[in-house]
């Protein structure tokens, strides 16, 4: 096998260890967001009625659309790895570019969503928001912090994929050495998973 020959050349390579390191990092991310989900669940338990009222103001269609975008970007991410495994460099680059583009779509939607909220006077510390009940203030506080932190993760992911594209162009990522692309893929999927939970918890409270 080609991969066996490569192993003899790259003596200091440990792909499994590399991926394990990435997973360990992802666990810290899990705890970061996990802590926020705990905060969310306690406040939702305490202020069920207010959370229900506040969540009605979020646009479910935009939220569902963004979910679809992110799920699709996960698919293109996987495709970029399969392509590089099959030594189809340009296809892999195309898929990486598509993933970045879908991430950008997600952020553009988020931008419009947030600015429309700003126009309605709903942002942390605004008079409009502070005049409401404490449950609603908490809901929007959590909404901005959690989707904001998630948005930063999407942005970081896009930058990382762009760096991977550069590595691919320079042949630092090849069909028998692509663990870096795999690791960024793992990160991208985790960001996707976090959104899978954020979406129903913020947009779909009935």
């Amino acid at each position: 096998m080609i991969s066996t020959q490569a192993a003899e050349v790259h003596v200091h390579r440990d792909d499994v260890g590399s991926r394990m390191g990435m997973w360990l990092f992802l666990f810290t991310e899990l705890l970061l967001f996990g802590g926020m989900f705990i905060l969310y669940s306690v406040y939702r338990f305490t202020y069920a009625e207010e959370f229900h009222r506040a969540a009605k103001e979020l646009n479910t269609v935009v939220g569902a659309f963004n979910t679809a975008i992110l799920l699709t970007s996960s698919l293109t991410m996987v495709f970029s790895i399969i392509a590089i495994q099959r030594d189809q460099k340009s296809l892999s680059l195309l898929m990486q570019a598509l993933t970045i583009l879908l991430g950008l779509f997600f952020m553009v939607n988020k931008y419009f969503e947030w600015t429309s909220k700003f126009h309605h006077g709903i942002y942390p510390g605004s008079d409009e928001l502070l005049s409401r009940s404490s449950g609603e203030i908490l809901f929007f506080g959590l909404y901005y912090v959690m989707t904001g932190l998630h948005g930063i993760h999407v942005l970081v992911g896009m930058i990382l994929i762009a760096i991977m594209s550069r590595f691919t162009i320079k042949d630092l990522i090849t069909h028998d050495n692509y663990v870096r692309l795999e690791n960024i893929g793992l990160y991208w999927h985790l960001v996707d998973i976090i959104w899978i939970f954020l979406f129903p918890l913020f947009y779909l409270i009935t």
Partner: protein
Amino acid sequence: MDKHETSAEHSHGYGIYILVWLALLSLTAITVAVAGIDIGRFTVATALLIACFKSFLVLNIFMHLKSESRSFRVFVGVAIFFLAISFILLFADYSFQ
């Protein structure tokens, strides 16, 4: 070498991933549809259950946990277990106050 063979194992066709992607999209649609029906406290439970199943699919197929060695699955299991403990202990305390 073992480590490279595990990498090579990840190489499947495109088909399975498209299937999983379609499943994820359908589950999102189901979540939205179910949210419209008022089934009381089960609404949240259903949404979270579907979200858990979607995460399971992403972890196993997209993140290749299924084809990784056992230690990866044990690690992920432990991480989720500790997160679950924090939720369970917190609510065990909080809901009876």
